[in-house]
């Protein structure tokens, strides 16, 4: 093994290996001039999406070197609708991370239940002074804008349910849009074929409409990115998609103008933007021990459902306004209103249970229960959910008691 070759060959090989590299392109990355292309998972800096923070303090408590500083106060928020109740909410005063202590383990990002903390690949925040590494929430919020979308997973990985659902949704929407655009284009052609109907209208073929190709179609872009296309590819395709859509839209407008016939507005499907979550459902699911992700997804669905129901109800109420008797109120309330004068009736219905009383979960928690659970060593999340449930139960009990007294 050692020195099996004739003497001197090893020395020559050494010269050979080094001179070989003289003619290769240096592997140096010219850093300040050339930005490193960091992967999305890079743990560069911790960013705070302040809007999502509920001051639950999980991150600060889980941090192995206690480098997160949080201050907050409670604030009463006026009721969202008429007749509702005022709610108290934790308001974040200070959120600071001392990056001179931080060991970049990522536990805070992992434990954050509301996706308020994120890793960003930003890394250029070196300072000459250690004190300056303590960054407040404003700075952390700025970094939140640099957080890249998570990378798509390997083929062998289990798909993340929400991502799969989101991709499905986007793909379906795109198909729908394309179908609509095609339909519009066909209609335009038909309109073209009947010049008598609209002689003044410009012969608007899709080819003749000029759309400035500067913008991108965000939906298409997101979908493509989610499919794992490169950013450049996605951008190009999204631009094309934008142009197509714009053309379709302009065509449709022109057509409408030419025909000048008032189209009967169809009862469109009610579209609700699925952005929010239904807090009640969420809390309930959490209390049942579902995972946060699952709970969030279901809560979103629940919210959409509710919203749709609400909008439909409003529309119905608005259209045949006169026909519906205004006395039709929620039955429970009606019962409550009617109960006092009809004493026998009240006696006849003594079996009113807690489940019959409706109390809206406002997000407040029952501090006693919460403290007790925390003392028992439950996690904060569980404790909060259970304490909320306890609060609602108490309110219901109070309501029942009041009725009983009455």
């Amino acid at each position, binding site marked *: 093994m050692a020195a099996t070759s004739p003497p001197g060959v090893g*020395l020559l090989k*050494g*010269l050979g*290996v*080094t*001179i070989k*590299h*003289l003619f*290769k392109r*240096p*592997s*140096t990355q*010219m850093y300040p001039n050339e930005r490193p292309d960091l992967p999305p998972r890079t743990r560069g800096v911790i960013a705070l999406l302040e809007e999502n923070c509920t001051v639950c303090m999980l991150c600060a408590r889980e941090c192995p070197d206690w480098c997160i500083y949080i201050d907050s106060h409670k604030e009463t928020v006026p009721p969202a609708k008429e007749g509702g109740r005022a709610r108290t909410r934790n308001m974040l005063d200070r959120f600071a991370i001392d990056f001179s202590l931080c060991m970049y383990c990522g536990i805070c990002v992992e434990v954050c239940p509301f996706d308020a903390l994120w890793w960003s690949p930003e890394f250029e925040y070196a300072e000459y002074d250690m004190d300056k590494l303590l960054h407040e929430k404003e700075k952390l919020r700025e970094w939140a804008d640099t957080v890249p979308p998570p990378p798509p997973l390997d083929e062998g990985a289990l798909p993340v349910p929400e991502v799969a659902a989101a991709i499905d949704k986007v793909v379906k929407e795109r198909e729908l849009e394309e179908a609509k655009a095609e339909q519009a284009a066909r209609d335009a052609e038909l309109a073209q074929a009947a010049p008598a109907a609209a002689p003044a209208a410009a012969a608007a073929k899709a080819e003749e409409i000029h759309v400035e190709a500067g913008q991108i179609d965000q939906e298409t872009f997101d979908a493509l990115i989610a499919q794992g296309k490169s950013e450049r590819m996605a951008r190009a395709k999204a631009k094309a998609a934008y142009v197509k859509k714009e053309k379709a839209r302009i065509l449709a407008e022109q057509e409408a103008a030419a025909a000048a016939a008032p189209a009967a507005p169809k009862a469109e499907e009610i579209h609700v933007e699925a952005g929010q979550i239904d807090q009640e459902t969420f809390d309930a699911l959490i209390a049942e021990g579902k995972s946060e992700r699952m709970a969030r997804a279901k809560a979103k669905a629940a919210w959409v459902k509710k919203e749709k129901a609400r909008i439909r109800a409003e529309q119905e109420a608005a259209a045949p306004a006169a026909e519906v008797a205004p006395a039709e109120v929620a039955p429970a309330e009606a019962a409550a209103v009617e109960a006092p004068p009809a004493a026998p009736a009240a006696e006849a219905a003594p079996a009113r249970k807690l489940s019959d009383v409706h109390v809206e979960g406002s997000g407040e928690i029952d501090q006693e229960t919460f403290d007790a659970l925390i003392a028992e060593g439950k996690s904060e999340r569980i404790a909060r959910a259970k304490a909320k449930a306890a609060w609602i139960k108490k309110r219901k009990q109070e309501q029942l008691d009041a009725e009983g007294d009455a």
Partner: protein
Amino acid sequence: MNVELTASLSPAVFVPAPSAFDLDVAFGITVAIKVAFILALFLVVPLVVGYMEHKAMGRLQHRRGPVAAGPFGTLQLVADGIKFIQKEDVIPAAADRKVFALAPGLALVPAILVFLVLPFGPGVWAVDLELGLFYALAISSVSVLGVMMGGWASANKFSLIGGLRAGAQLIAYELPLILAAIAVAVQAGTLSLVGIVEAQATFTLPGTDLNLWFVFPQILGFVIFFLASLAELSRPPFDMPIADSELVFGYMTEYTGIKFAMYLLTEYAGMVSMSALMVVLYLGGWQLLPGVGLPGCEGAGGMFDCGWLGAIGGVVITLAKILILTFIMVWARVAYPRLREDQLQRLSWLVLVPLSLINLAVIAIAKVVVF
């Protein structure tokens, strides 16, 4: 008396070849011009070589080398020099302050003095000494005194070991170096460096008109001289006096700022002067290729009595050869680990000294019999 006989019996009278700076002006001005010339060479050429080393090392190691200071990083060493000047001059409390301060200077001055006799082109030398080769080798080995002084005066064990290693290394490698150089002097018949260049310009392979440099008959001597000069300069793979992973930085451990820079400058100047010596002794001086003279030149082999064009061409050729030799030094530094001190001594006494004696004997016999 027969004139010819007298000439052959009595030693030839040495007539120094005139330098281009020997102008028809006052002696003082001539001296000033020569000093300026030597200093300019001393300050500029090592910088060029240093830049070459930075860049070549970078590329050999698959990186770029300096890029930021000046165009293509050319001013990197200038920037380094400015940095060294600004640095605090720290003298250890236990150091022998006078010796400590004197040592870098003592290492540096001989490195300057060697440049006195080095011919860089036709007429481009300060002085042509009859004992030029002797002078160059003798004065260049004085540098080690500065190194040993620095090692001793630092009051640091690493420095001391480094200094002693440097001394041992000098003793071991001076011998093969000089023995190899003597063979050249024997073949050329002179110790004058200009004379040796002239001898190479006129040396032909016996029996033919083919002009040859001394590297061809004395390839063994050239290799020995090259290795010995690497060792004498403490260049890798013979850099035990510095040996940064063992001795921190050897005799330079305690030096900072401008004194440290002086040691570094000594090293680069040494690389230049040793390479220049090799060019003169073995590679035909400012001759482009064997048998090819310079434009506008007369004299032996078309290499002397030139105009400005020839002088500049000669200097360019010499510098190019120096750069090639120093590149090989850098290349060896990049490719090899360092030897151990005892292996280095063994290499010198058991391999290089006998080989250089054989080389000397062969050349001496050939000089009488063949050349």
